[in-house]
C-alpha cells in the first residue's frame, strides 16, 4: 500500500496546502434569516427559486411516460420558508422530479442548496452539457448542513460544482422523496457563486499527482472528490460527527479477528478527520477508514468519477500459469492472473489463457490491493489471505469492478495461442488509453471459464447473476447420471418455496431420485440469506448445529472470544437462540456432491461451512472462501451515500470464531493456463474425476 499517495497523507498535511482556493472552505450557509424569520437569498446568489410561481422543470427525453407528469403541487402558505410559496412533492417509485437552475453563461463554480421538510429528500445537482461540447455530465449529491428551523425545514447543500456556462444544456436539482407521509416540501432553491471554474484535468493512473490532493484519477480524468460527497461539516459539527461515526464503528463493527486486526487503524483514520479542511478530506477519510476495515460486507459506496472512457470486455481469474512461469516466475504471495474469458471485440485482443503479469508495473493483485487508499467501496475478502474479489474486479463492466479501466495506466500481458497450445513468452505492455472506447459485448466475471451442461448453459456474456442453470453434465453418460447446477445467489429471503429455495428444493428432489453424482458450481457466490445454505446442506448430512450467529454484534465492542473455551461457552449459550442448523434426517449419504467455489462470501461462506465434512461431499477451490461470517447494519446518510458495516461473528461447534477465516477447500485446485488454452475447466475436471470414482451405487432391481 503506497503511503505517499495524497489521500493517504491528507490527515497530516498542513492547512496551507488547501488554502489556495475557495473550494476548500468549511461548510458555510447560503442565505440568511431576517428578523421576521423569513429566509433571504445570499448576496452571492446567482439563482434563487422561491416557488412563488410554477418552477421550470427538466424532463429527460428518454423518461418513462409515467415519470413525465409533474410530481409536485405549488403550495401557498404562511409557513413557506421564503415568500409565500413552496412545492410539495410526491415522486412515483423509479421516477424523479427535476427543477431547472438558471446559471450564468460565464464559467464558474456554484454551491446549490435547498430547504426541505416532512420527509427525507434525496437530492443531487446535475449539469448536462451539449453534445458538441464533448463534456461529461456532473452529478453531485446534496447533504445536510445541520441548519434546521423550528417549523421543520432542513437545509441541504452541495459542494462547489464547476460549470462551463456556455456549454450547459441543462442544470437541475434532481429530487426523490422518501419517508414523506404527505409529500415532501421544498423551498428556497439557491445557487451561490463559489469560486472559479475548475477545469477537469486529464490524468493517467490512480496515483497521478496532477490530480492533487482533493481529486482521484478515475477513467483518465481527475475526479474531484467533493463532487461525490456532502459538504464538509461546520466547525461546530465536525467533532460531534467524528464522534458519531467512531462511536458506531467502535460499538458495532465486526467480530474477533476483524476488530483486533483492523479496527485500530480505521479509528485512527477517523480521528484524523477532525482536522479535515475540505469535504473530500473528511468524507474521503471516512471512505478510507471503511476500506481499512477490510471486510467483505463493509463498504461506503461513493460514485466517484464519471462515465468510463474505455472498455475492457475481459475477465480475469487466479490460476497457475504453467506455460509461462519459466519466463515470468510466480509471485511468492499471489497466484498468477489469467484471462478467464473475453469478448471478441473490445477486449484489447485478450483471449482465454493469456496471462496478465502486471498492472502499472506491479503484480495485478498487489496493484489492486493498493487501491484501498483511493477507491471508495474497495471490495475485499475478510480473510486476509484471499484475493479473489480483487482479481475478479480487475475486469468486467464499469459498475461491477473494472479496476483496470478506472485506475490503471498500463497492463502487461503474455499472449498465448490456443490453437497451438503455446504462449510466446513475450511481455507486451498496453496503454489503457489505447483500449477501444465502445463496442463489443459486455462480459461478466464469474470465475467460470466454461460451462458444462449438455443443454441450457449461460450465454457467452456469463450473465449468471440471479439465475439458475441446471442439467446433465456434458461428456457424461446417462448411466453415470451426473447432474449439476450453476448459480450465484443464496437469497432465499425467508420464503421456503420462493424463487431460490423453490429451485433448490426441486433440484434436490430430482437429484435424490435420479442422480448418481452432483456438481454444485457456486464460483461467484454473492451470499443471500441463511435459509438457502441450510436447505442445501439437507442433501448431504444429518442434522446438526454447525455454528451459532452472534450478530449483529451481541455485546457493544466485543472483540472475543479470545480462547476456544470462551468460544465453546458462547456456542452453548446461543445454540438455541441463533443456531446455524444444517442437515436433515433424510439426507442422501450415498450421493456424492462436489461443491465448486472460488469467490464466495457470507451466506456463500456458510454453505461450505455447513457442507464441510459431510459424508460424501468434497469442496474444490483454489483457496478459502472470503470468511465473511457475519451480517451487517446499514446507515443511510441523507441520500448522499450509504455505509454498510459488518457486525457480529460466527462461532463454530468447536468454539472457533470464524470471521476472517474462510472455509478451506478439501481439494485445492488452481485453474491451469494449459487447460484454458485446451478449453478445459480445471476445477470442473477435478470434480468430475472425483465424482466418477464415487458414483452413487446403482439400485438393484
Amino acid at each position: 500500500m503506497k503511503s505517499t499517495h495524497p489521500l493517504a497523507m491528507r490527515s497530516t498535511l498542513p492547512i496551507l496546502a488547501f488554502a489556495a482556493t475557495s473550494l476548500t472552505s468549511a461548510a458555510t450557509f447560503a442565505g440568511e434569516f431576517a428578523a421576521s424569520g423569513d429566509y433571504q437569498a445570499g448576496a452571492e446568489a446567482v439563482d434563487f427559486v422561491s416557488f412563488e410561481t410554477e418552477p421550470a422543470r427538466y424532463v429527460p427525453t428518454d423518461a418513462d411516460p409515467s415519470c413525465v407528469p409533474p410530481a409536485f403541487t405549488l403550495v401557498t402558505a404562511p409557513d413557506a420558508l421564503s415568500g409565500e410559496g413552496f412545492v410539495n412533492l410526491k415522486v412515483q417509485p423509479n421516477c424523479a422530479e427535476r427543477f431547472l437552475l438558471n446559471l450564468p453563461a460565464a464559467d464558474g463554480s456554484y454551491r446549490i442548496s435547498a430547504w426541505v421538510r416532512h420527509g427525507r429528500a434525496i437530492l443531487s445537482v446535475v449539469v448536462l452539457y451539449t453534445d458538441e461540447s464533448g463534456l461529461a455530465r456532473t452529478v453531485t449529491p446534496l447533504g445536510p448542513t445541520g441548519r434546521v428551523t423550528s417549523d421543520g425545514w432542513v437545509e441541504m447543500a452541495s459542494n462547489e460544482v464547476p460549470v462551463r456556462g456556455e456549454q450547459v444544456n441543462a442544470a437541475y436539482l434532481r429530487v426523490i422523496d422518501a419517508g414523506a407521509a404527505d409529500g415532501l416540501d421544498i423551498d428556497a432553491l439557491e445557487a451561490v457563486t463559489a469560486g472559479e471554474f475548475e477545469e477537469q484535468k486529464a490524468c493517467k493512473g490512480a496515483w497521478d499527482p496532477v490530480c492533487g490532493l482533493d481529486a482521484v484519477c478515475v477513467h483518465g480524468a481527475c475526479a474531484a472528490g467533493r463532487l461525490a460527497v456532502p459538504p464538509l461539516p461546520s466547525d461546530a459539527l465536525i467533532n460531534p460527527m467524528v464522534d458519531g461515526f467512531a462511536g458506531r464503528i467502535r460499538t458495532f463493527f465486526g467480530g474477533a479477528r476483524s476488530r483486533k486486526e483492523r479496527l485500530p487503524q480505521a479509528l485512527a483514520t477517523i480521528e484524523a478527520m477532525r482536522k479535515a479542511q475540505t469535504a473530500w478530506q473528511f468524507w474521503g477519510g471516512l471512505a478510507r477508514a471503511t476500506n481499512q476495515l477490510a471486510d467483505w460486507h463493509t463498504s461506503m459506496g461513493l460514485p466517484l468519477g464519471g462515465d468510463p472512457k474505455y472498455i475492457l470486455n475481459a475477465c480475469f481469474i487466479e490460476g497457475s500459469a504453467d506455460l509461462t512461469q519459466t519466463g515470468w516466475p510466480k509471485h511468492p504471495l499471489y497466484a498468477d492472473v489469467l484471462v478467464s474469458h473475453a469478448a471478441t471485440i473490445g477486449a484489447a485482443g485478450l483471449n482465454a489463457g493469456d496471462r496478465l503479469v502486471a498492472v502499472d508495473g506491479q503484480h495485478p493483485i498487489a496493484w489492486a490491493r493498493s487501491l484501498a487508499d483511493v477507491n471508495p467501496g474497495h471490495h475485499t475478502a475478510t480473510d486476509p489471505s484471499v484475493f479473489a474479489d480483487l482479481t475478479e474486479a480487475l475486469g468486467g463492466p464499469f459498475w461491477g469492478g473494472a479496476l483496470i479501466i478506472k485506475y490503471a495506466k498500463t497492463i502487461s500481458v503474455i499472449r498465448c495461442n490456443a490453437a497451438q497450445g503455446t504462449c510466446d513468452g513475450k511481455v507486451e505492455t498496453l496503454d489503457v488509453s489505447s483500449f477501444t472506447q465502445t463496442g463489443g459485448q459486455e462480459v461478466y466475471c464469474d470465475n467460470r471459464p466454461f460451462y458444462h451442461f449438455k443443454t441450457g448453459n449461460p450465454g457467452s456474456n456469463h450473465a449468471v447473476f440471479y439465475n439458475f442453470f441446471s442439467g446433465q453434465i456434458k461428456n457424461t453418460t446417462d448411466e453415470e447420471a451426473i447432474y449439476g447446477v450453476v448459480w450465484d445467489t443464496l437469497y432465499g429471503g425467508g420464503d421456503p418455496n420462493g424463487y431460490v429455495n423453490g429451485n433448490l428444493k426441486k433440484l434436490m428432489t430430482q437429484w435424490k431420485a435420479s442422480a448418481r453424482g452432483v456438481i454444485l458450481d457456486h464460483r461467484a457466490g454473492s451470499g443471500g440469506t441463511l435459509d438457502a445454505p441450510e436447505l442445501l446442506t439437507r442433501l448431504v448430512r444429518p442434522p446438526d448445529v454447525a455454528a451459532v450467529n452472534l450478530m449483529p454484534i451481541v455485546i457493544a465492542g466485543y472483540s472475543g472470544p479470545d480462547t476456544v473455551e470462551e468460544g465453546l461457552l458462547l456456542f452453548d449459550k446461543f445454540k438455541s437462540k441463533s443456531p446455524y442448523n444444517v442437515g436433515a434426517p433424510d439426507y442422501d449419504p450415498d450421493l456424492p456432491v462436489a461443491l465448486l467455489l472460488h469467490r464466495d462470501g457470507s451466506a456463500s461462506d456458510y454453505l461450505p461451512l455447513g457442507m464441510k465434512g459431510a459424508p460424501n461431499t468434497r469442496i474444490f477451490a483454489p483457496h478459502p472462501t472470503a470468511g465473511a461470517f457475519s451480517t451487517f447494519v446499514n446507515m443511510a446518510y441523507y441520500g448522499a451515500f450509504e455505509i454498510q458495516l459488518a457486525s457480529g461473528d460466527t462461532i463454530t461447534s468447536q468454539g472457533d470464531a470464524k470471521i476472517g477465516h474462510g472455509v478451506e477447500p478439501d481439494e485445492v485446485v488452481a485453474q491451469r493456463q494449459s487447460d484454458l488454452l485446451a478449453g478445459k475447466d480445471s476445477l470442473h475436471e477435478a470434480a468430475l474425476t472425483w465424482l466418477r470414482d464415487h458414483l452413487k451405487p446403482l439400485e438393484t432391481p
Partner: protein
Amino acid sequence: MSFLPRSKTAFFAAAFAIYLSGCNVAEEVNPAETSSTTTSSTTTQPEPEPSAVVPKRTVFVRNPLGEPAANLLVDGDFELSITAGGGQYGWRKFNSGGSVEIAMTAETGGLCRTGLTCARFKKGEIMFGRGTAAALNKGHVMSVYARVPEGIACQKVNVIAVECDTFKPLKASATEPDLENGFCHYKDTFAPSSSAVCLYLTNTLPADAVAIVDSAVLAPNDGTVPYQYSLEPDLPAGTLLTMQNVRDLIHRTTRFEKPAPSVPPP
C-alpha cells in the same frame, strides 16, 4: 407504570441527563442576529434585542448523526434509517400484525426533539430499533421521547426492551408523568444482558393520530444510576405473538450478501 420509587426516578433523571449532556451540539441561531454564523455549544447565547417583530421561526444547528455518540442503538436519533429502499437500518417498521415490513416515515427539523429527523408513528404500527448489550456486564438505561397529539395519553405508546435474537421482553418502560417540552418521556433501567438488546415500540393510538418518536437512547448503566431489577414485563399474549412474527420476519430475511455497487443516478 413505573418500577421505580419516585425519589429514585428523580435521581435517575438527573443522572441520565448528565449522561446525555456534553453530547448535545444543538444550538439556536437567533434570526434577529447573526443567523449565518455558528458558535460553540458551550458559548452562552446573548440575550435577544427587544424587537417588535415576532419571528415566525427560529433556526438551529443540529448534528445530522444525532446524539449521543455512545448510544448502544445503531440509530437512536432516527437520522440514518430513512431511505427510498429497504435494508438493515437502525430502525425498521412493521404492520400491526408484524408480518410485513413497511417504510419508515419521517418528520424533520425543529419538529423533532433532537437531530434532523424523527419518526412518525401511526396507529398499530410497530418499530424495531437495532441495538446491542452494554459491555462488562453492566445494566442498562433506556430512554425514548414521543410527542402524542393533545388529549391522548402517553401510555398509548409503549417502549419495550427485548433480546434481539429471541424477542424475549426485558423491560417495558415506565412513562414519566409530566411532559417535557411537549414530549412524553419513556425511561427505565434493566439488568445486564449477555444477548443483544433491541427496542420494540408499539402503540394504541386512535386512527389518524400520529406520534413523533425521537431521541432513543440505550446506554450502559455505569453505576451512577441506581436501578432495581424487575421481573420480566407481563405482556398480553397478543403482543407476544406479534413480537414473534416480527422476530421471525427479521430473522428469515437477515441478509448475508455482497454490498451493491455505487453508480451515479441517471
